[in-house]
Every structure is written in C-alpha cells, then in structure tokens.
C-alpha cells in the first residue's frame, strides 16, 4: 500500500472512530449541551480578562482592542480546531503508562488515527465557536482597507494555524512515549502557545519572538499574517512575503511531527507486566 493509500486508510479510520464517539455523546444530549457551553465559557473568560485590561488602557504595546481581538480570534479558532480534531492525543501518556496502547497496536488500522480519534469530544466546538465569534467581532471593528488578498489570507491563516497546532499536539504525544509522567510539559506549548499568540508580538522580549518565529514557528499561526493585514511592523525585520508562507510552514511542521511520531512509536515497549 502506498503513502496515499495509508493516508486514506488513516482518515477513514479516524472518521469511523470519531463518528462512534459522536453517537455515544449524543446519547446524553443535555450533558453535551452543558459541557459545550462550559467549553465556550471557559475560553470566554480569557477574553473577558483582555477586555478588563482594555477598560484601564487604550493600547497595549501599541495595539488597540480590536487588533488584539483579531490576534485572539485567529489563534483561538486555529487552536480550537486543532484541539477538536486531535486534542485527545494529550492523554496518550496515560495509555503508555497503563499499557492500554497495546490494544490499538493489534488492530489493523493506523495507530496515529486511532489515538487522535480516541474519545473524540464534539463539545470542543465550544472553543472554536468562541474564537470565531471574537474574530468576527474584531473584523467588524477593525479599520482596515479589506482587499482580496487580505480577505483570503484570513481563512488560510486559520487552517494553517490549525495544522501547526496539530503538529505540536502530535510531537507532544510522541514525546510522551519517553516522558510518561511528565505529560504536562506539553501544555506549555499547546495552551501556553495559544495564550502567547493572543497578545501582540511587541509585548514580548525579542529573543522570545525570535524563538517562536524561527525555532517553534508559532508566529506563523497569526502574528505574521495579522501584522501584514493590519499593517503593523513586526518586531523582527522580516520580508513581507513571509506573511503568505503559513501553509508551507504547516506542511513542514506536520512532516517533522510525523517523523517524531514514528520514532516515538518505535521506542514503545509496553509495560511488561
């Protein structure tokens, strides 16, 4: 079976397992509605904190509230989508620890697809909705000359951002084969990453901005495209065309994450009981 065949097989497996979890969730509709709302509210309070900040100041490091909301919306939606699609992978450490990963290894389906779809939680739509609402509000308030490239760059940035965060989740899961108990380190990059991106790059020290631009390329989720759309100078002296490269960065990240996943899976030795 070629690479294309394996990919199709993986997607088919993923959709089957995810669909099963959705049906099981829908058996308790009230609980689903409440947890989705809870998911929405949990991230909403993040944004309330930002609004409270702006009740005391007009600008944060030179950015206005709609501009910060634009950053927040792009990052929140991209991260929310990644969390919906693949967020269950952060629980891989538990399966490694208790050895239940063995069950997935003996099934005739790609392990990555099984782990990603495991306990698929539709309630995470709450986070996506919240991010999208903030993004919509920001776009309605921004004073930007919308041109076709600017309008098109927005969905491209959200989807590429989702790809970049998916790569972070997969790399984090691969790391859990080694780390086991230290699974929480991953949160620093996933939840920490999206929190970082909610604020303007000019807030942070240059070394940190360099790190998230060149080493862990989170800046391509929203900082670079948003800086170009809003006409804001980026703290590092970079060419404008980089704002259009998030799709390439996302593909590159996913390829590297795939390699990390293979290396991690190969090092798995079960619990040995």
């Amino acid at each position: 079976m070629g690479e294309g065949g394996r990919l199709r097989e993986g997607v088919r497996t993923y959709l089957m397992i995810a669909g099963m979890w959705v049906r099981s969730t829908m058996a308790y509709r009230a609980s689903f509605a409440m947890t989705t709302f809870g998911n929405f509210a949990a991230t909403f309070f993040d944004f309330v904190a930002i609004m409270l900040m702006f009740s005391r100041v007009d600008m944060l490091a030179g950015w206005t509230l709609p501009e910060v909301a634009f950053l927040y919306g792009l990052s929140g939606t991209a991260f929310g989508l990644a969390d919906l699609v693949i967020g269950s992978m952060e629980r891989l450490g538990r399966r490694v620890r208790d050895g239940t990963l063995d069950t997935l290894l003996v099934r005739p389906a790609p392990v990555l697809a099984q782990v990603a779809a495991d306990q698929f939680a539709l309630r995470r739509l709450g986070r996506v909705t919240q991010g999208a609402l903030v993004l919509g509000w920001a776009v309605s308030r921004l004073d930007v000359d919308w041109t076709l490239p600017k309008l098109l760059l927005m969905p491209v940035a959200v989807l590429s951002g989702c790809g970049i965060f998916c790569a972070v989740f997969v790399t984090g899961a691969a790391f859990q084969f080694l780390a086991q108990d230290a699974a929480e380190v991953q949160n620093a990059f996933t939840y920490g990453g999206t929190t970082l991106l909610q604020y303007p790059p000019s807030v942070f020290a240059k070394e940190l901005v360099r790190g998230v631009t060149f080493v862990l390329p989170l800046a391509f989720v929203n900082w670079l495209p948003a800086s170009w759309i809003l006409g804001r100078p980026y703290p590092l002296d970079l060419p404008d065309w980089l704002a259009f490269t998030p799709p390439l960065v996302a593909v590159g990240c996913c390829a590297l994450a795939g390699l990390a996943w293979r290396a991690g899976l190969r090092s798995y030795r079960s619990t040995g009981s």
Partner: protein
Amino acid sequence: MGAGRLYVAVAVGGFRRYATYRAATAAGVFTNTVFGLILVSTYRALWDERPHLGGWDQSQVVTYVWLGQAFLSTLAIGGGGVEGELMERIRTGDVAIDLYRPADLQLWWLAADLGRGFFQFLGRGLVPFVFGALCFPVYLPADAGTWLAFLVAVLLAMLVGFGIRYLLALSAFWLLDGTGVTQISWLAGYFCSGMLLPLNVFPGALGEVVRALPWSALLQAPAEILLDDADPFGTYLFQGAWAVLLLGAGRLLQSAATRRVVVQGG
C-alpha cells in the same frame, strides 16, 4: 494513637503521595514557568501604558505573577486537589468506608489536602518563584516580619481553598456526577482569585464584588501582604471569617448528607 497524631499521619501521607511523582512535578514546574514568562510580559506592557495601575508599580506586579504560578497548584485554584478523589469515592460508594473509620470525614480530607498543599508549595511553587525573582526585577519585602505574616496568610488561604472544594465535593452526594460543578469551580477559581488579572485592576463595582468573594482570600490576600499593600490583621480577619464560614457550611452539609443520603453501591 491521639487524634492529633492521626491527622498528622494523614497529612504526611498526602505530602509523600504527591512527592512520589518527581517527573510530573518537574513538568509542572516547567509549565508554570512558561506561563509565568508570558504573563509577566503582558502585565509589564499593561503597566508601561498605565504606571501605578491598581496602586502597584511594575516590580510588585511581577512578584504577583510568580506568586500566582506558585499558588496555582498549592491552593488548587483551578481544582486538582483532593476533592476529585472524594467525589469519585462518593459516586462509587467507597465513601461508606471513610464514614465508618474512627476519624472525622472533614478533618481527614483537610489533613490530606494540607499535606498535598505543603508539598506543592515546596515542590512546584518555590522553583518558579525563585526563577522569577532571579530573572526579573521583583518586589520582595526586606522585613522578616512581613514574610512571616505572608506565610500565615498562605496557611489561611489553604483552609479557605479546602473549604470551597470540600463543599463542591459534597455536592456529589446529591448530583453524583461532579463534572459540571468542577467546571464551574475551575472558572470561578481562575477568574475570581485573580489568576487571570489581579483583582485590584478590575474596574469599579466588579472589583468590589470579586474582592468580597472567598476566592480573593486565596491569591490576592497573601499577595497584598507580601507586597506591603495591606494590613495583615484585616486580611487575617477576612480570610479567617471565610474559612470559618466555609468549613462550618461543610460540616452542616456533611451531617445532612450522611443522615439523608443513601450511599451508592448497595
């Protein structure tokens, strides 16, 4: 064995239990430090726009950030203390075993939670705080008395924190499933304790309201003592009043629960 020694043994057990997972502790320290770095940058930008916002200067708010990261797991502000385990025991019916032990249910779990809190204060809290103090210009009181007063406030904060979470855990006697309550308490904990934004920055009436709620006894109250921004005795009175009220309510609810509710599991 005297009653006092029993609860000390439970607390020591709680301490040692959490001390077992060293890799998890190191991971938590790392994550807290990263979040601390992000928050310090955003708050410094905020204080650059409005110096002396909320009556603090930049060095004071930097101390506040690292204190928050140190307290997050110590006081289980977003949950993650012993209440999750107690809820599960109520749901499965194992709580029946706890009830016929010759020990008081509330004191038993309080001792376990204090043991957990002390470990997380030393194991998870101290390192990010020292890191922050070494890498950033922080405000630290020169007077040893202030440090001592601060530690007393931390102890009171632990009592208030447990008081809130014990009430939540007992709700499982009626609700059985604690997911919703846990989620709400996580939200309230983050927002009302000042983890998302210091409470003295909240505008107007909202600020007044959140400062009167018990969550402000967790992070804001000890922080204000360490930052020389509050009178210790007034703060103790506020924290102590909430501790008595919450623990008393917990006791009432406990007796109602054990009298009226049929324990699960046959």
